[in-house]
């Protein structure tokens, strides 16, 4: 049996109950009108998608940008982060989290992860210096960081909070949606995300009118109107084309998430008795973890990975090298031993397919294949 990590072909072939038209058919119907309309840049469909997205995440504003990376970068710029500043983030994340900080000229300052792949809030205060301007907690894997604590620290030290929610559309922390808790939230619609368009794409959410106005300028060259330039900006717009695609998907996001959570529950339960071989991270009832990535810490990881791949289960590693030890970070002066939990994770994590389009049989097969490896 093959258990694919990517679900794109299945997603596109899907029909709504009682309908013949697939998701792809419906999107192509919309695209036909879109291509004929010529409304390609900051168009009507983009505005509609932004409204729906803001409603979905419970924020006042949502602004489409070119990518999740740019969502974080422009949020930082809009909040005034500049060269000489420091921004605290988690050592265990995708490169773009720290990349967006570096892009502003500020310095990323890493804090180790906890056992649930999010920033260890107890270590944040020790990382704060007079140069610190913001904290960027990451909803890594789709799990929420302890945001109450992050907000408390930020308030006491007068820091901005930018949620890296790139993995976490539909995620919740104490009843509040991802991207609605800090000063700004950055989302990604990259083809591998839970809400996925057909290219790069991103979104910034915020409740601040002032920040929204600033980002509206920054994403479109700083234009106040066609001829007048208020500030020097960038070119980072979510293509209206991709908003047309996303509009066909946003209504299903909650259902897609529920299916991912159901797959994760099955895995959790099936591996609960494998202590010593598999460590299932603690799950918190106050968090809606959306399982963009279903990650476990396992013994003998590399051998398990090849065993799974050999048996058709497309498992992955996100990621094998701790971010602070990448060559790009060499100038920051971190050394091995600085981030023990992140290092441990990089050597022991594995990501199992847990998407919304897996069958019960495929999940069972994945479970059996994992268990089979350890019962040898």
């Amino acid at each position, binding site marked *: 049996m093959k258990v694919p990590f990517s679900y794109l072909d299945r997603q596109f072939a899907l029909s709504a109950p009682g309908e013949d038209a697939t998701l792809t058919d419906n999107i192509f119907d919309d695209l036909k009108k879109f291509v004929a309309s*010529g409304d390609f840049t900051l168009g009507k469909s983009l505005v509609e998608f932004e409204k729906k997205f803001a409603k979905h995440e419970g924020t006042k504003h949502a602004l489409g940008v070119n990518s999740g990376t740019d969502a974080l970068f422009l949020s930082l710029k809009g909040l005034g982060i500049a060269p000489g500043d420091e921004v605290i983030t988690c050592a265990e994340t995708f490169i773009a989290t720290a990349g967006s900080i570096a*892009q502003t000229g500020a310095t990323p300052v890493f804090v180790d992860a906890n056992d649930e792949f999010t920033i260890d809030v107890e270590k944040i205060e020790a990382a704060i210096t007079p140069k610190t301007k913001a904290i960027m907690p990451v909803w890594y894997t789709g799990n929420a960081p302890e945001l109450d604590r992050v907000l408390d620290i930020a308030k006491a030290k007068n820091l901005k909070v930018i949620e890296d929610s790139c993995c976490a559309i539909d995620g919740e922390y104490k009843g509040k949606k991802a991207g609605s808790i800090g000063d700004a939230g950055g989302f990604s619609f990259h083809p591998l995300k839970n809400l996925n368009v057909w290219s790069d794409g991103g979104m910034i959410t915020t409740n601040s009118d002032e920040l929204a106005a600033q980002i509206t300028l920054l994403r479109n060259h700083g234009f106040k109107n066609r001829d007048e330039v208020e500030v020097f900006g960038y070119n980072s717009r979510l293509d209206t084309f991709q908003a047309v695609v996303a509009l066909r998907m946003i209504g299903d996001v909650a259902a897609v998430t529920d299916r991912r959570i159901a797959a994760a529950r099955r895995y959790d339960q099936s591996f609960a008795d494998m202590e010593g071989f598999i460590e299932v991270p603690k799950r918190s009832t106050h968090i809606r973890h959306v399982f963009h990535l279903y990650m476990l810490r396992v013994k003998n990881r590399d051998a398990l990975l090849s065993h799974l791949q050999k048996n058709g289960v497309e498992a992955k590693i996100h990621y094998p090298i701790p971010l602070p030890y990448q060559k790009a970070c060499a100038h920051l002066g971190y050394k091995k031993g600085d981030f023990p939990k992140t290092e441990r994770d990089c050597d022991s994590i594995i990501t199992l397919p847990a998407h919304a389009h897996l069958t019960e049989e495929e999940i069972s097969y994945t479970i059996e294949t994992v268990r089979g490896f350890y019962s040898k």
Partner: protein
Amino acid sequence: MRKVPYVDLVRQHAPLKKDILAAVEHVLDRGDFILGEDVEKFETRLADYCGTKYAVGLNSGTDALFLVMKVYGIGEGDEVITAPNSFLASASTIVAVGATPVFADVRDDLNIDPDEIKKKITSKTKAIMPVHLAGRPADMEPICELAKAHNLKIIEDAAQAIGAEYHGVKTGALGDAGCFSLHPLKTLNGCGDGGAVTTNDEALRDTLLQYRNIGLKSRNESELWGFNSRLDSIQAAILNVKFDQLEKWTERRIANAARYRERLGSTVRCPETANGTRSVYHTFVILTERRDALKIFLEKNGVGSSIHYPIPIHLQKAAKRFGGKAGDFPVTETNAGQMLSLPVHQDLNDEDIDYVADKVKEFFAN
């Protein structure tokens, strides 16, 4: 009343719709949405067309300028010389890398004046960014000589000039790097943002490939801090469909321009194509002191026109801190009050052009 819109993306896309959707479907079938087959195909095609060794697809023309300067190490304390009458992105990308835009006034042909460039070169100057405004190549020979003498990079802002030529060499192949925009309003246009860099510089190309992809050398290794600026596979697929039409469209624009010149040459100042060059007429800019009244008159008669651009960059609020003031660039400033772009796109027919020309003549007859 006849309608001659300044831009008509609806008319442009009606005959292309089927092929565009088929190309999008191919991307979907392959699922290679990010840096897929169509991006590579487009890059090869663009490099061949421009006569460079390499082309790299990026998210926008703005990012093309920005990333080239990043790769060349241009930043804080450096100066880059460019034209003050361009689209904002020429200067804003210089600001974005942390450098200072230094403006040099233009000639009557709206392109940067090499003699003015010469006056602006200092020990801090790192590059010259000539803009091939309106699709007309800048006077590159003296610019290249200056760059050579002062060891400066030449970054061509060719956003409006795909297909233009200067003494037989295409724009994009005239400097160290050529920066193109594939925005919907360009002659070779995606259905969303897009851009590209053309170059013969292998090191530039290699670093651009990393920069556009978050600095990643492989899936798991990053060697430098990068950006996310990839040409979408879907836009590349659409551009590959349109590439087949590019020469035809360009010839049509050139013919439209010639027709205007023939009919309006004795009425108003029309753009000329300089000897030894190919001007591709991204815009057809006439100059008249009665510009604002003419624009209103044309509008009343169903003719769309546009101004590229009414406020010179050095006079924008955003540029205040660089200390530019009215009077600094007399040619640019005079032109800003006199320029009017007439519709010249490839989907206009002879009757459209004649109608516009007649209306312009009618205006000046009164």
